């Protein structure tokens, strides 16, 4: 067998019914035990390359492939069942990948369908769970795991199947900074075990010292394609030094954790939380127990806390989507009915598809405006927001036909169209490239400058660095903001 795990020479690919190729002139080689990052602005062809490597193209997604591509010793195109034995895939959202309901069964699933002997499956599952410190989670339901644990369970399944090549699509999009650091360490361990990795990601900072090759795509073509030389410069530093890097719409290669003051001391409160007590049902655990805090007006506040601490639950309470068992939430000093709160607040949820209802992008924006606003004013405001968010050329498109990044911008524009006094965003930039992330950051900053109170739930350190001004920390059973510990979102 060749020493190359991947050998791509002048690879081009075109989806059916499209004129422009999704990929063109892609050439690179990757050895066993090496790691490569593929990055670039949204729509540059990253995911297409990943689908070529794991065999989904042309087995699941049809199209025209030209050039020479060898993956794990097989010349593509190869039947899916052949490639699936050698290539493991980790998707952006592990929930979309789970097929079984318990961790152990999920890890064993591929082996079961390969009809491996039961003893062998047991040994390989146990080994994979041990390597990823998941032994204690074996019988847990996959639905009860945190994002980081889910990502590890997916990786364990890939390891148990003894994949030679692992391709990862935006693996950090839903991970906390701590879980992201752990993933980087894990990748180094996998490399040491001879596993080859191809990582497709917008976030770059976490891959310092991990990469052997870096490929930047722009409109389907490689604009930066570098291999790490022994003792050579780190590839991300090399990328940052490129003169055209700003044009490629990438995220920054160096990001630090911002230290933010507590929100209680930051300014006049827009929302006051007094003695909040909440649990989902009588039998569930208490999430908030007499929690008090202030959300300042005219600032972007980061809600900070570990996975499962109750960040999204707090957002639902503040928006009037859930009712606390005790305590009160005052908006502009007044206790409002939940319906009135929902009129004043806007909440951008993680799941974009379920927040888009209308036939065109423009109608979606008009539908979001308060009914009392005159039609002419609404239309002018919609035009302004379409231009601000770079959606003007998509005004007559169906919202559900937009790309992920475009949908994210549209949903935030719809939230602003509502003219809220309180704007809450739950992971608004996961899976977004640098250019789009900066557009959203700028609009958030402007909202705060105009006197609005913005609450941000995010693991995106770069976004926090750009716009967050103070923090609201929650830790399971909560206490008020108080002293300011360093941010560890």
């Amino acid at each position, binding site marked *: 067998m060749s020493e190359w795990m991947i050998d791509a020479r002048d690879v081009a690919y075109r989806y059916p019914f499209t004129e422009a190729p999704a990929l063109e002139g892609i050439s690179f080689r990757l050895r066993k035990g090496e790691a490569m990052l593929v990055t670039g602005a949204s729509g540059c062809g990253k995911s297409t390359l990943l689908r070529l490597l794991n065999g989904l193209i042309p087995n699941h997604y049809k199209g025209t492939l030209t050039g020479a591509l060898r993956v794990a010793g097989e010349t593509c195109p190869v039947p899916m069942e052949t490639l699936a034995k050698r290539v493991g895939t980790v998707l952006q959202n592990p929930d*979309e990948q789970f*097929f079984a*309901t318990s961790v152990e069964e999920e890890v064993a699933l591929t082996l079961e369908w390969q009809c491996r002997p039961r003893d062998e499956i047991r040994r390989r599952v146990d080994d994979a769970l041990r390597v990823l410190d998941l032994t204690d989670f074996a019988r847990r339901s996959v639905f009860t795991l945190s994002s980081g644990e889910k990502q590890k369970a997916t990786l364990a399944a890939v390891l148990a199947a003894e994949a030679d090549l692992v391709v990862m699509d935006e693996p950090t999009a839903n991970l906390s900074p701590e879980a992201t650091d752990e993933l980087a360490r894990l990748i180094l361990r996998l490399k040491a075990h001879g596993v080859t990795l191809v990582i497709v990601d917008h976030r770059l900072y976490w891959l310092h010292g991990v990469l052997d090759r870096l490929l930047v795509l722009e409109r389907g073509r490689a604009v930066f394609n570098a291999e790490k030389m022994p003792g050579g410069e780190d590839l991300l530093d090399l990328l940052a030094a490129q003169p055209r890097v700003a044009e490629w719409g990438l995220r920054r290669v160096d990001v630090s954790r911002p230290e933010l003051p507590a929100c209680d001391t930051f300014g006049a409160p827009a929302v006051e939380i007094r003695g909040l007590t909440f649990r989902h049902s009588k039998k569930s655990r208490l999430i908030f127990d007499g929690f008090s805090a202030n959300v300042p007006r005219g600032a972007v506040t980061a809600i900070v806390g570990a996975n499962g601490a109750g960040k999204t639950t707090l957002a639902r309470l503040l928006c009037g989507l859930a009712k606390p068992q005790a305590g009160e939430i005052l908006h502009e000093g007044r206790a409002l009915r939940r319906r009135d709160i929902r009129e004043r607040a806007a909440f951008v949820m993680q799941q974009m*598809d*379920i927040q888009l209802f209308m036939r065109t992008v423009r109608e979606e924006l008009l539908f979001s405006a308060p009914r009392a606003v005159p039609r002419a004013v609404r239309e002018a405001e919609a035009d302004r927001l379409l231009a601000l968010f770079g959606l003007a050329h998509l005004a007559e498109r169906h919202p559900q036909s937009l790309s992920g990044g475009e949908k994210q911008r549209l949903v935030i524009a719809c939230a602003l169209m509502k003219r809220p006094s309180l704007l809450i965003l739950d992971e608004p930039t996961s899976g977004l490239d640098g250019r789009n992330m900066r557009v959203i950051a700028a609009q958030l900053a402007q909202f705060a400058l105009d006197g609005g109170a913005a609450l941000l739930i995010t693991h995106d350190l770069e976004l926090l660095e750009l716009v967050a001004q103070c923090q609201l920390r929650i830790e399971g059973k909560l206490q008020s903001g108080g002293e300011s510990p360093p941010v560890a979102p």
Partner: protein
Amino acid sequence: MRALSVSSEALDIRTRLLLSLVVSGVSIYLSGTGPLLALGAATLLYVLASGRYKVILVAYLAVCAMMALTVGVILLSFKIGEWFAAGTSWEQGVAMLKPALLGNFHTPFLRMIPALNVLLAIGLDFSVQRFVGAMKSLHLPRVVLVPLMVFCRFVPEFIDVIRQLRDAVRMRGFSMSLGAALLHPIQAIRLTFVPLTVRTLRMADHLSVAAEMKRVGYAKRPTQLLALRFRRVDFAVLAVAACLLAAICAWQAAIPATPYGPSSMKSDQQQEAAHE
């Protein structure tokens, strides 16, 4: 009571599925009040072992409400007939219904009780994981097994999507309640149908991709890591159930036929002769 539970993890899901199948079949065969009450009582003990008394009470109240509703609708139809002078009068209707209420009117409802009990015993402690495991161990063909796995995987996620959609709709100032749907049906369709359809199609695509990548469906008989095994308690419960069911069926066979059930099906002529 929970410690003594026979419907919890102590019993194999296949035992519970078999019990529900057989008990439902037997309850169709039975027509006598005595045998049906006996079967109802035996299966009630079985479901009470789950310790979920409140849910069981609610289910029984629902059956009572259903029975009351049935009687109410019949009486109402007589009343309407009387108003329009086009059918049986109220007094005649009540007079006709009275023997049925005192006689065998309750039989269909009594038949529901054992089926309700055995289904509750499954539903109150349902685990998708154990259910799929049981289906795998039955070596079902993959054309049945794979859709079943997809279905079991799909349902919890779909419920979560509905919950999120309800929040999204409420944040736009609308409601997903039945009243709102009746008042504004087109708007209700737009607010629910479009996002749910798109999300469901996307979920289906993701699941099919995941299945391809994990080779699900590529083998005729996949290995099963966690093999389910019948234990002593399963054999004991099945033996007791078999004895009880045999005794109840024997009791039914020994009593005179009633107007309901297969054992009592008589021709019209026979029934008329009996009346005469």
